[in-house]
């Protein structure tokens, strides 16, 4: 479904991402892991069009989407969440999700109708599905951190994506919140038949749900494959020595 070939990106001479290749199959749950500064977020920004790669290609269902603007990539069925929570803080929860539905259904240029009655039921249903039932009128910026992450997931889901890119979906969460989020993601991916590509620092999370893992180190892929193979990889063990990868053993 998603094929990345030899993607590279430098910032002022520093190679953040270097000839990264990876593929994600339809309905696969794939993870990208690596130490801080390994290039995970840069890789995501290259895929979603927020950054232009220096070299390499990104293909979605065989179609070249390298360097296409973010709003277009979004409309092609790619949803994403950001590492630092990225919502519309001064809008209510309802307005946040409603906005995403409005764009998705091409209502954005409707400048004469009243926006209020649009997509009330759809928003309510989505809120129920992401665990924020009845929070419509809350100002998004005042939600708890965990709830903001849930809302962000809702924003990504409102455009009915086929593939979801999640950058550290459990960052900053307590153990309970992390657990809940993982179950939520698994359930939603199942219900909506989604393909999932996520980055994560919590190895327990990664090994509990990922079907395929790519390990980045200093911008390069050092391992790519099934979780067990990656766990036993000598290079990965060396990079992660003392970083908790072996905790599951």
């Amino acid at each position: 479904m998603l094929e990345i070939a030899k993607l590279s990106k430098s910032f002022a001479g520093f190679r953040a991402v270097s000839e990264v290749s990876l593929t994600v199959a339809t309905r696969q749950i794939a993870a990208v892991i690596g130490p801080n500064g390994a290039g995970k977020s840069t890789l995501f920004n290259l895929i979603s069009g927020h950054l232009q790669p220096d070299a390499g290609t990104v293909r979605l269902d065989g179609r070249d989407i390298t360097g296409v603007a973010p709003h277009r990539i979004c409309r092609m069925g790619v949803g994403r969440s950001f590492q630092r929570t990225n919502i519309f803080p001064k809008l209510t929860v309802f307005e946040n999700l409603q906005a995403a539905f409005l764009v998705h259904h091409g209502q954005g240029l409707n400048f004469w109708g009243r926006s209020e009655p649009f997509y009330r039921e759809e928003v309510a249903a989505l809120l129920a599905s992401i665990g924020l039932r009845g929070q419509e009128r809350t100002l998004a910026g005042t939600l708890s951190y965990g709830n903001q992450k849930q809302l962000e997931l809702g924003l990504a889901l409102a455009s009915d994506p086929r593939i979801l890119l999640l950058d550290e979906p459990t960052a900053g969460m307590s153990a309970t919140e992390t657990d809940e989020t993982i179950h939520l993601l698994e359930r939603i991916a199942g219900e909506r038949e989604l393909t999932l590509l996520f980055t994560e620092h919590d190895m327990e999370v990664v090994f509990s749900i990922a079907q395929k893992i790519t390990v980045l180190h200093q911008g390069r892929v050092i391992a790519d494959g099934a979780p067990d193979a990656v766990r036993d990889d000598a290079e990965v063990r060396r990079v992660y020595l003392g970083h908790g990868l072996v905790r599951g053993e």
Partner: protein
Amino acid sequence: MTASRRVPWTLIVFVVLATVPWVGSRYDTFLAAQIVIDALFAVSLNLLLGTTGLVSFGHVAYFGVGAYVCGILMKTYGVPFVLAFPAAGLGAALFALISGYFCVRLIKLYFAMLTLAFSQIVWAIAYKWNDVTGGDQGLPEIPYPNLDWINALPGCGDLRISDKFYLLTLALVAISLAVLHRIVRSPFGRMLTTIRDNPERAAFIGVNVRAYQLAAFVVAGAFAGAAGALYGIFSRGVFADYVFWSKSAEVIIMAILGGMDFFWGPPVGALVIVWLNQKITAYTEYWPFVLGAILLVLLFALPGGIVGGVHALWTRLRGRGRA
């Protein structure tokens, strides 16, 4: 906020304003006209500032283009107001489309600086292009539109031409504000608020951020142009001073002082600034100093502007009433 329970405050305000020529002095009508025109100008700016999150530091350019287009058409070419007024809005919108095309490519401070640059270009043209704009002499004695038809309305037969033009101005501003209000409350307006809150995220729910910013810029420019056209006739002339950058700062102050998070904030700001300006200049020539002091106090005491402060107070009182 059900429609049935609401008091039609806006309608009441406009009806009260319409009585000014009868109940007030000639000077009151003059002040009211200036407030009403500045209110439209400030609301048009706030579509950028408060709704889209774009700080335009050159909004007066579109006001000026509107004033000059309407003034030149009416004075030099004898075009009737019914045509010259929409032409002013269209001319300003067209200029906003061209300048905005470049401006929305930049962000934040750079955006603000480029809008300022465009407005100074307009000022330079107004100041130097003697044949068309009258240069530093400006365009004096712009004719009033033919307003004899207002005589047919009950009780309007004895009004001065300036009073009649005030009524026409009030009606046109009311219509313009109604249109802008509708735009802000529409799905399009919702898109603009997502851009204000978080342009990066807006792009990734599928919003073409630049295109929407440009659209907002053009709409704001059109209504600023309409306000400028009215102002040129109201003040009996169009002069290069109108387009000077300090007027852009003044309208930003109106929006912030009134409360840019509220649709009716900028008009309240316009009311306060115009009124204070008139009152204080009667006592002291240090008006800018007094304005600065008042602004300082208000910005610290009422960070949401006057309307924001009233709204917060109202919410608290109502909450206490319920508890």
